[in-house]
Structure formats: C-alpha cells, structure tokens
C-alpha cells in the first residue's frame, strides 16, 4: 500500500502541497505579527504589551519545553518493554 509515486499519493501529502502549506503558514505567521501594529494592546504587566510579545513568547517557551523534555528523557526514558516481566 505504501507508494512513493507522487501522483498516486493523497493530494494533501504531495510534496507540492506541503511546500505550499509551509509558505502559506509563514505568510499567516507574518500577518499575525504585523497585526500588533493595529490592535490596541492592554498589557497587564508591561512586557506583554510590547510588539510581538505573544509571538516570540509562544515560540521561545515551546522550544524551551521541547528541549527540557528531551533533556529529561535522557534520564527517565526506558524501553517500552521495561515493565513487561511483572
């Protein structure tokens, strides 16, 4: 069932569509950042009212969480058969 022929694949997973999705996604992200010029921010603490706060905060914290999980995984990950002989 696995096929590598581009044209036989579902249209959503063809290389061309994926490329298009990436480009479209970038445009949306850019537009969202730009939206900060137009909306009236009402910050609670100061920094959260600065330009692009929610954008970079979302990105940075998520990268941080993935890296933290990865680091924790070094110590706590085990093969999923670990408890099998109980």
């Amino acid at each position: 069932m696995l096929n590598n022929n581009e044209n036989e694949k579902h249209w959503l997973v063809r290389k061309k569509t994926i490329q298009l999705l990436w480009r479209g996604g970038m445009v949306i992200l850019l537009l969202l950042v730009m939206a900060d010029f137009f909306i009236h921010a009402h910050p609670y603490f100061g920094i959260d009212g600065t330009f692009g706060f929610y954008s970079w905060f979302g990105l940075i914290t998520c990268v941080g969480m993935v890296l933290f999980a990865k680091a924790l995984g070094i110590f706590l990950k085990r093969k999923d058969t670990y408890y099998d002989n109980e």
Partner: protein
Amino acid sequence: MIMSDFPPGLVLIIGAFLLPIVGQKFRPILTLGLPLVALYLIWSLPNGVFSIFPFFDYQLTLVHSDSLSRLFATVFSIMTFGGSLYALKQKSVLELAAVFVYAGGAIGAVFAGDLISLFIFWEMMAVASTLVVLSVGSKLSLQVSMRYFLVHVFGGTLLLVGILAHISATGSTTFSAMAPNTFGTIFILAGFLINAAAPPLSAWLSDAYPEASFSGAVFLSAFTTKTAVYVLLRGFPGAEILVFIGIFMIFYGIIYALLENDMRRILVYSIVNQVGFMVTGIGIGTEMALNGVAAHAFTHIIYKALLLMSAGSVFYMTGKRKCTDLGGLFQSMPLTAICGIIGALSISSFPLTSGFISKSMISQAAADESLTVIWFFLMAASAGVFLHAGIKFPWFVFFQKDSGLRPPDPPWSMRLAMLLFAGICIGLGIWPEFLYAMLPYEVTYVPYTVTHVINMLQLLLFAGFAFFLMLPLMKRTLTITLDVDWFYRRAIPAVMSRLFTLIWAIDAAIRKTVSKKMSSQLTSIEAKHNRLSDLLSRGYPLGSMAMWVAVVLGLYLFLSVVK
C-alpha cells in the same frame, strides 16, 4: 420522598444493576435513556437540601443542590449519554454496569451535602472505576487495576481519617469551604488531591486509563479527576498551596506527553495538564477564577472525551495505540480525524472552540490579581497545550508518515457520538452564554475581543511553528518515561526482595545451628539410653517400662507393709 427530589445519581446506580438482566435488545434503551432521566431530575431540583436520612448520630444529606453541583451533574450526565452512545458496540456488560455505577457515584458525590455521604459515593467511584479497567479481562488489566485500586484505597483512607478528625473536632458533618490548617482538613485535602492526580501520586492515571477498553477510557477520563476538581472547588477555594500544585501539574503533563509514544497515554497526561489549570484557578480563588474553573471543567470533560473517542476509534479499528505504528490515517478515517482535530483545537483553546471561552477566564483571574509569575506560567502552558496535545496527537496519529494502514471510520454509533461532542465543543465556543449562565457567580467576562483573539492566535500558531521546527527532535521512539510509580513498581519491591533474601539467609543459619545443637543433644541422650537398656532388655522402651512398673509395684508393696 417525592419524585422531584430523588437523588439523580441513584437513577444510574440502580440502572446499572438492571443492565445485566435486560436483554441485548433493551440495553441500549437503558444506557441512552437513564442519563437523560438523570439530566431531567437534575434540572427539576430546586436549590436546597433534600433526601435527608438519619445515620447513627448524624444525618446523611444526599442532595444539596445549587448552581455548582448542578453544573457538574449536568456535564456528568451529558458525558454518560454521549459515552453510552459511543459504547453501543461495547460487548462487555460488566464494563457498562461498572460505568453506570461510576457515573452515578460521581453525580452522587457532587450532590452530597455532607462529608459522610460524599465519602460513600467517593468509594463507590473507586470500586466501579477499578471494575471498568478490570473488565478488559487481560492479565495486564488485572495488574493495572489492582495498582489503580491500591492508590485509591490509600487516598480514600486519607480522606476517611481527615473526615473523622474533622467531625470530631468540629462536631459537624457539613461539607463547606475549609482551610487546610487543621489535622482533619489537611488529610481531607490530601485525599482529594490524590484523585485529582496531583503529585506525587499521579502515575495511577497514565498507568491505568490507557489499558481500559476503547470506550472505558472515554468514561474514565471524565469522572474521577473532575469530581476531585469539584470537591476542591467547594472545599478549598483560595488555598494558596493549590496554585503551586496546579502549576506543577500543568508542566508535568506537557513534558511527559511530549516524551510519550502511546496516543492514549499522551491524552491522559494532558488530563493532568488540564486539571492543573483548574487546580491553579481554585488556588487563585477569586469569583472570576472559580467561574473559570467550573467552566473549564465542563468544556474539558466534553473535548477530552471527544479526543479519547477519536483515539478509541483508531484503537478499535486498528488495535494499535503507538504513534510509531500509526500515521496517515486521515485518508481512510476522515471523520475520526476531523473530530479529533476539533477536540485538539478545543483543548488548545482556539477561538471559536469551547476551550477558548473557559480557560482564558483562569489566566484573566491571574492577571486581575497581579500574579505576574503565575500569569507567565499560564501563558507558556497555553502554548504548551497546543504543542503536546493540540498538534502532537493529530499529527502523529492522522498525518506524520504513511503507516500503510487504511481502516475505515468506526461504526455509526461511534461516529454519531463524536459528532455530538464535536458539535458541543464548537457550539459552546460560538455561544458561550449558555455555559456562562450556569456558572456559580455572575459572569462579566467577555472572551471575544479583537486583542484577545489575535493574541491567542499569535501564541498558538507560533507554538505550532515551534512544533514543526523541532520535529526532528520529536521523533517517536519505542519508549516509556519513568514516573513516581517506579518507586512502588521497582524500587520498593527490589529493596524488599533483597531484605527478604537477607532475612531468609539469617533464618536458615539460625535453623541450621539450632538443629545441629539439637541433634547432638539427642544423639548423646540416645547413647545414654542405649547403655541403660542393657540392664533389663535389648529394647529400651520395653525394658525401662518393665523396670519402672517393678519399681512402682515394689513401692506399693513396701507402703502397704509399712502401714
């Protein structure tokens, strides 16, 4: 007792015992009809206390109805209805009956007006939910359900100790707001927190729930943790320690879900994450926060059930649960994928979904109270929810790579249940006023402002961007992540088995020495008697008996002569 104040939970509990009796034909009528009857009873209850029974020196108040208990009971009965629809293909009557006792226990617990009746329903839920896991019938489900049961028996014991201490200190069984500052209330809080999957004992959740059946996991996700949220909401609003416990739970859920490979365990870790938001809100304790918690519990039950229905459908159709085995299923299971995505967007609180109108009330409350650090944590966590559940679940199950699996969508009953819950998720997102009207306090919050919508979209879409940037690091592996349960599954048994090896070695040494000593003693006694036996006969016992009889007779003769 008139019909209008009949405890609604009892309808489901009594119904549970009818399920095995009625035939297969009539069972769906009961499983779909009883939750609706319960819902009707819940809404025909006026505010106040009903169904009061004497119990030794105390009184049991089975129904204490107000807006908060009505809200939770409502979502529990909607959940039971939707779950029953989803479970029409479930062949195990044991599971269905256990589910009805479980759901009835949950509704009973949220209506319980005093601590004793609360405890009775609490334990009923513990037993029934264990049976839901056990009903799978495999060796693994037996082991898992016994671990699950032990944790809940422990939690129940803490709760019982707390309740008894509280009653003896105050003389009152009333269940009302408390502060964790006496022996009794601290134990009550600890008992509640174990069921909320708070640290350190939270591993029971990710251990047990993924081993339930395709439908069992859907029910399990709804009742235990959310009943715990309810009792914390009623019992400990504004208890500061809950803020810290909640924040820990939020990030524990995200990190463990990021590391996880089993799709249902990902969703179960995200229960801990979502309950963390609620526990934090209870700790903040303002009217805005408590409203947010109640609203979030309601929306969470629906979208989490939807997510587990979507995962359950994949499990039902393919028998597979691991992300490494799945992928590309959107092609043949479009409805399951779309409903799963709606649930995923709701849990991530995307605008126009139910999560958006509930979770933001909790972070708003943190902002209103100027809890700076907490607010930044909550924002990071909102982004993290999209990361670990909002994208990770649909991506690895329905897209990712082509696993070659082409199962069709599940049977109509399961599809219908998913559509119903997806509809509620979107409906509440568009018309939040229905939910807001049911909340315990008046709602002044307006979720849909341009700023809020744009800010939330920025946060979430950049979280999504982070996911795809970090995708190489997120590659699924055939692994599990160790949790606190390692201590009672591995460390303590290992220490104990070594301890017992040592005890047995000492025991053996003592026995050996003693038996050596005894046998040498016996040998010397034997040798002595062997010498004696030569006197009268070769056989010692006979000879010595004859000798002693002779002695006695001689003595007798002597005494009679002397007399």
